[in-house]
């Protein structure tokens, strides 16, 4: 089971749920985000652009570690992992 925690601003795409639980196995963060996309296409399109990259000012943490400093979308996901999506410090 993988938990995906989303910021409030994306909850309008998840029936106001701040956390989604992904059943089944996902080997990588990329696979987990694709599974998220099947549950909530709206949230997925705000996190990822259409070329398949994580948006530049979005950070994704796997068990508290930013995946940019791990293996990116290819980072392996252990069982019972928590993926947290957060806006970067940039903004207007």
């Amino acid at each position, binding site marked *: 089971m993988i938990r995906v925690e989303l910021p409030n*601003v994306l909850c309008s795409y998840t029936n106001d749920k701040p956390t989604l639980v992904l059943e089944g196995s996902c080997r990588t963060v990329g696979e987990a985000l694709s599974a998220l996309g099947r549950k909530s296409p709206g949230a997925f399109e705000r996190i990822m652009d259409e070329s398949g990259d994580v948006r530049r*000012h979005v950070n994704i943490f796997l068990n508290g570690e930013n995946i940019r400093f791990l293996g990116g979308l290819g980072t392996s996901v252990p069982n019972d992992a928590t993926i947290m999506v957060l806006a970067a410090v940039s903004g207007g």
Partner: protein
Amino acid sequence: MATATHSRNRRKARGTSAKKAATTRAKTARKASAKAASPRRAAAEALLLVGTMKGAFIFRADKSRRKWKMEGPHFRGEAVYALLHDTRGGRSRTFASATSMHWGPTLRISDDVGATWSSPERQSVKFPEGSGRALAQIWQITPGRATEPDVFYCGVEPSALFESRDAGESWRPNEGLLNHEHQPKWQPGGGGLCLHTIVLDPKNTRRMLVAMSTGGVYRSDDGGKTWRPRNVGVRAEFNPNKYPEFGQCVHKVVQHPSRPGRLFLQNHWGLYRSDDWGDNWLDIANGVPSDFGFAMQMHPHDPDTVYIVPIEADIFRATPEAKLRVYRTRDAGSSWQPLSRGLPQSDAYENVLRDALSADSFDPAGIYFGTRSGKLYGSRDEGATWTEIADGLPPIVCVKTGTVSAA
């Protein structure tokens, strides 16, 4: 001598008669345009749509346009580069491109002039899978022809053209431009690689023109299937070859619908006019303090009148001599005159971006512009005098006009 005098007189007579003919043409076009632009003018309320780096603001005024009431910000914290209010087909539909720095761009639609906005779950404007490109920004939303009320176009970054045939609900990219052989060589300008200008032939549905920074002007004569660069005479100061076939950094192109083959162009260095749909461009920087600039706006009723805001240089993007001046030509670029009454004439280091200068459809026309420093100015008398409508807004990137029927 007698022959020379006679010849001079003939030239003078020809000049006078040509001038009269031009004035008559302009008056006729003005009347027709004013009538077509605002058939319900008596009942109309004026709208100013202002896009900023931190949201959109909507200003409303009665037809006198003396007092403006501000609403907003809409889309707080999001950059709004493109706005449009369209009344074709019996609709009153407003479009806004709102880009969150974090979560990307979304095209929003309102059918009640901004009281409520659509919040689509899925992005309606996006590149096809496998194209390797991702939408960064929508720079322009342009209505289709009067005869095609459900057609709209979007110009986007990275440079591409999208088309909707269902009043903006769904969009598809123009394949001819998406896969153009020049596409890999188009380079980003300071604002990004964007297709920011879309000009339609109002009668010939197969002809349209787009402009990109950089890339230059491209025209299609076959309904958008193929596109040819149309940059002959337009210079590229930043290029070893100053007159390449394409790659110019064109900032804006405008056209009057009563004379669609004639185009005016504000370049990254250079002011031009074309009399043949962009086949050739003539330098018309006659009497301007700088031919660098971004914004350019056609007069709504007079095909000889165009407005610009000259900027000192690309390395110093501020109004020349620290004076905020709009320049206007009333003779299709043969001469330009400054319009400064009511605008700051000292210590004004301002910049007006490419979509931040606009005109309404009233008669006399209202002219409006916004600065990067967040000041919004308006003129109710075609630029003769100016008043400040708002100050302290976030950096203004877009100013558009519209009318709604008064409640």
